[in-house]
């Protein structure tokens, strides 16, 4: 497949937004359980939600560039019964709304307990909205990834590992950003977010590594035999039917050499997984405020390459019809 930067930025940016929100809510739950001191509502949660919302908006803007007719995008909510893309179009704005409400509730300090559960757990408005938004965040990971994982003849994508990768890499980058942001404004939550970022990064390394190994072992089920229905061991295309280009020769071919692909794979394998972990560990040892930012920035660059490779490594079965120009 030809990697489209609109989709690359969409999926990576909303991944950060989702992960960052889940990091904020994790902070609130930790504070509720008295594992960390209660954070000041305005500075931490409201500003954090605003930044998460910013990433989601940026992702949404990127997605507009993928559409031929963005002015009709509202129509995309109609086919949610069958289309994962339609489900994503519904869940993304819902999640954005909940993140917005979560930020607003914290901004106005609506943190007085509404009621108590078992006389020990005070439930306030932000906790309820946060819980709903967290569920939406996971629903969005599933919707986004299932757009790809549901296409059964794109075998590189047709696996639960696709959903797992999108979720873990989104969580990793979001928590990494939370760590970087905490370091930047010198909250004492760098180690909490940093530890979770490292955990998700390492889990992501395992799951992405597994999917890379799986895809390497895939063998083409299809071939010219069934594509044109001629049974002969020795066949080749002489002409694809036209001398110029076409949608079919542009959309489904990445047009890069195997060497370039290998380079991009090694870049993202290093930039997404080991280097940010080392940087976070070093930052913890040195108590450096800038290294977590470097870790996040590098991981995000790596994630762009990872998503590029995700598209490029999928081999569309239609390509068998477009092997020879004349």
């Amino acid at each position, binding site marked *: *497949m030809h990697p489209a930067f609109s989709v690359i930025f969409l999926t990576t940016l909303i991944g950060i937004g989702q992960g960052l929100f889940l990091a904020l809510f994790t902070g609130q739950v930790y504070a509720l359980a008295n594992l960390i001191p209660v954070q000041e509502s305005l500075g931490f949660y409201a500003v954090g939600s605003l930044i998460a919302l910013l990433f989601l908006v940026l992702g949404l803007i990127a997605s507009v560039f*993928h*559409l*031929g*007719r*963005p002015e*009709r*995008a509202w*129509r*995309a*909510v*109609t*086919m949610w019964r*069958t*289309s*994962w*893309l*339609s489900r994503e*179009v519904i869940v993304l704005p819902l999640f954005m709304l909940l993140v917005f409400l979560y930020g607003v509730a914290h901004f106005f300090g609506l943190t007085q307990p509404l009621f108590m559960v078992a006389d020990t757990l005070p439930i306030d408005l932000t906790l309820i909205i946060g819980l709903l938004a967290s569920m939406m965040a996971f629903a969005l990971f599933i919707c986004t990834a299932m*757009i790809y994982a*549901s*296409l*059964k*003849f*794109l075998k590189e994508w047709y696996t639960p590992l696709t959903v797992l990768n999108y979720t873990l890499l989104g969580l990793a980058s979001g928590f990494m950003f939370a760590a970087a942001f905490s370091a930047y404004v010198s909250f004492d939550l760098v180690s909490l977010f940093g530890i979770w970022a490292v955990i998700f990064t390492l889990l992501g390394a395992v799951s992405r590594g597994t999917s890379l190994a799986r895809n390497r072992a895939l063998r083409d*089920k*299809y071939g*010219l035999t*069934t*594509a*044109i*229905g*001629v049974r*002969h061991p*020795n*066949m*080749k*295309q*002489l*002409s*694809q*039917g*036209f*001398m*110029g*280009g*076409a*949608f*079919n020769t542009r*959309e*489904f071919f990445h047009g890069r050499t195997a060497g370039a692909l290998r380079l991009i794979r090694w870049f993202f394998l290093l930039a997404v997984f080991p280097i940010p972990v080392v940087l976070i560990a070093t930052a913890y040892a040195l108590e450096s405020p800038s290294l977590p930012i470097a870790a996040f920035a590098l991981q995000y660059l790596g994630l762009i390459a990872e998503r590029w490779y995700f598209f490029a490594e999928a081999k*569309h*079965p*239609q*390509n068998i*019809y*477009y092997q020879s120009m004349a």
Partner: protein
Amino acid sequence: MTQLALVIDLNVCVGCHACVTSCKEWNSSGWAGPMPDENPYGADPSGVFFNRVQTYEVGCFPHTETVHFPKSCLHCEDPPCVPVCPTGASYKRADNGIVLVDYDKCIGCKYCSWACPYGAREIDAQNKVMKKCTLCVDRVTDESLPEAERKPACVLACPTSARIFGDIHDPNSVASVAIREQGGYQLQPEWGTQPANHYLPRRRSQMQIHEDELIRADNPLRKEEVEMPIEQGDTLDDVAW
């Protein structure tokens, strides 16, 4: 239920591209148009086609055969491009099984083209919507046309009648009979999309000529290997015209 479809005989197709050009002509000016070309006379021309004729070489040189392979939307009975469409622009007509795109609803997200294993859909880069073979729905359903012309443009254009159009759910249609009796098959059946279009296989066309058909073995008036005492001259058989 009706399922209109094409049955394409690979044994008959000569690869002349008449179906390609007549498709482009009809659909450029018809309901499904336009089919814009970009840079048509420049160095890197590109354009929208609903139908392409490809050419394959089968066998090892010098014992090779050329197979011309017309390729268009197969109007699958279980089309993978339809459920993925987020707007419902991509749909399969209930009355005749043709898979179509509603150009007024399409948002140009290209997801349907990813979901089609045959590469049957092409985006119209100028109108920013997805386009595909309509099986000339505006022709085949037009009752103001004479019955014989209610066929897709490609079928009418084919000089060798390699393309048969009909309802494959009607067991007595020409298309169904051709599929049944000439070994019609579907493309990439392994995906379970159940393409409605079928192809008739390439066959070796050979005529077996036995030696006794060349000599007049049983003919008492045969001239071969018969020694006559005197020259007989031409018989009536030899000068027949």
